């Protein structure tokens, strides 16, 4: 069903319509939350919190921006509030690396899973601002305009922040033994 119709039905407190709508956004929200707070449990809770916020305020959505942008913005702000509450820099969830069981083979061949884990680990080492733009641009594939709308900053700022974030990520990758591929 068309997203716009679903939104209309949601405005009339249609539970089923909201269920269909949120189902398509759960993964995006959860991932943004996970990379921002670096913790699966907190990401789980924050996704729920975001969903409730969306449900509560869907009647306020005017359609000026894309619905996905609006959803991302709510999720982003929810995460920011959470980070502010916690204040202290969240420690990286080592489980992410451990669960993938990185084994450096003798022949120096890195498996796909291992590459993923290292990249993930490197992203988690970045500061919150860089991490956010990497998630939105390189993982979620959003346009500069969308990122600009979500973060409420200029497109130019978005671009420069992405460049700096990538430079920082490259440094982290080098630190973690990743070199230019074949």
């Amino acid at each position, binding site marked *: 069903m068309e997203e716009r119709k679903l939104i209309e039905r949601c405005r009339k407190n249609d539970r089923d319509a909201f269920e269909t709508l949120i189902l398509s956004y759960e*993964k995006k929200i959860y991932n943004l939350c996970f990379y921002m707070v670096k913790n699966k449990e907190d990401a789980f809770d924050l996704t729920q919190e975001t969903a409730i916020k969306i449900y509560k305020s869907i009647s306020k959505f005017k359609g000026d921006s894309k619905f996905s942008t609006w959803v991302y913005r709510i999720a982003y702000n929810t995460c920011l509030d959470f980070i502010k509450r916690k204040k202290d820099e969240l420690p990286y969830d080592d489980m992410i690396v451990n669960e993938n069981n990185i084994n450096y083979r003798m022949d120096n061949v890195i498996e796909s899973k291992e590459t993923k884990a290292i990249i993930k680990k490197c992203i988690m080492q970045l500061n919150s601002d860089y991490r956010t733009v990497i998630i939105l641009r390189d*993982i979620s594939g959003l346009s500069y305009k969308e990122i600009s709308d979500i973060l409420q900053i200029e497109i130019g700022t978005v671009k420069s922040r992405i460049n700096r974030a990538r430079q920082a990520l490259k440094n982290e990758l080098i630190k973690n033994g990743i070199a230019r591929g074949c």
Partner: protein
Amino acid sequence: MELQGGARMGEKEYIDKMFSVDDFEKNEEEIEGGLLDNLIEEVPESLHESIMKKIDKHKNRLNFKIYGPIAAAACIIIAISFQNKIFVKSTKIESKDEAKSERKLASSGSTPEEKNTTKVYDNGMKTEDTNAKEVPSTELAKNMSNVEKSKLSGFEFNGSNEGKNPVETRGVTKSNEDKDQAEAQSLAKSNENKSQAETRDSTKSNEDKSQAEIRDIAKSNEDKSQAKTQSIAKSNDDVNQVKARSLTKSNSIAYNFEIKLSNEKNKDIIEFIEKNGEKLDENFYKLSVNNFNVLDEMLKKQGIEKITSCENTEKEVIIKLNLRE
């Protein structure tokens, strides 16, 4: 360490491009977005379920917020109406209780509580005080052998100095009891009609003029009884008149019989009384002896009890109707 072919194309490309750029600050080349989409985390299975649970909870809360005040208002209205019902009921019960206690007072007059409302005179006449606030002028118990008696003699009247010259009468002995009783009875008989009329008239007309306070404090001590009587009177009437006044003071009606009737069941009797009797006050009727005899027959037929207050009936009988629903 080198990235081998095992890594997914997107990641490989991303890393290649990352390392192809020396300085990102100066680089104009665009790296397309979404190359690391392989890093997207899978959502826990229970996430969707728990989200919908929370939504349902929130929806219920929202419904409660909307309908809660309406429900609360409805409850308050119901409670108020229910309270009113209880109040009406309780007032009805109270009025019933009052009626009951009134009947009790009229039928038996020996408890201390009843002193203010029921008076029994020497001649056996019983009056019921319709004005409960007024202080009874004379109190005498029904049982003459046990209860104290006041000697209403030796009054000293002083119209100008109210309450200044109390007279104490002491020493009413057993030997004088019969004498007093006879005196009082004869006095009551002779003044019966007069005093009844005077009771109504004189108490009202002389209310301001005459105030007599008689206090009887008597101790039953075997044969001896002591009574203290303080009397203050303004007018200089003779003793008998004062006596009559004191007996019939305070808006009271002496009656001979009290009849308990039902408003619904005993309509014929009530009609008979209303037709043939003279209404003295609310529920007080005066009947001729003949009419009373007819009424008595009707009462006997219907098995209605008649409480005797005083059988002093010569020409007419005063009855009190105790009406119930």
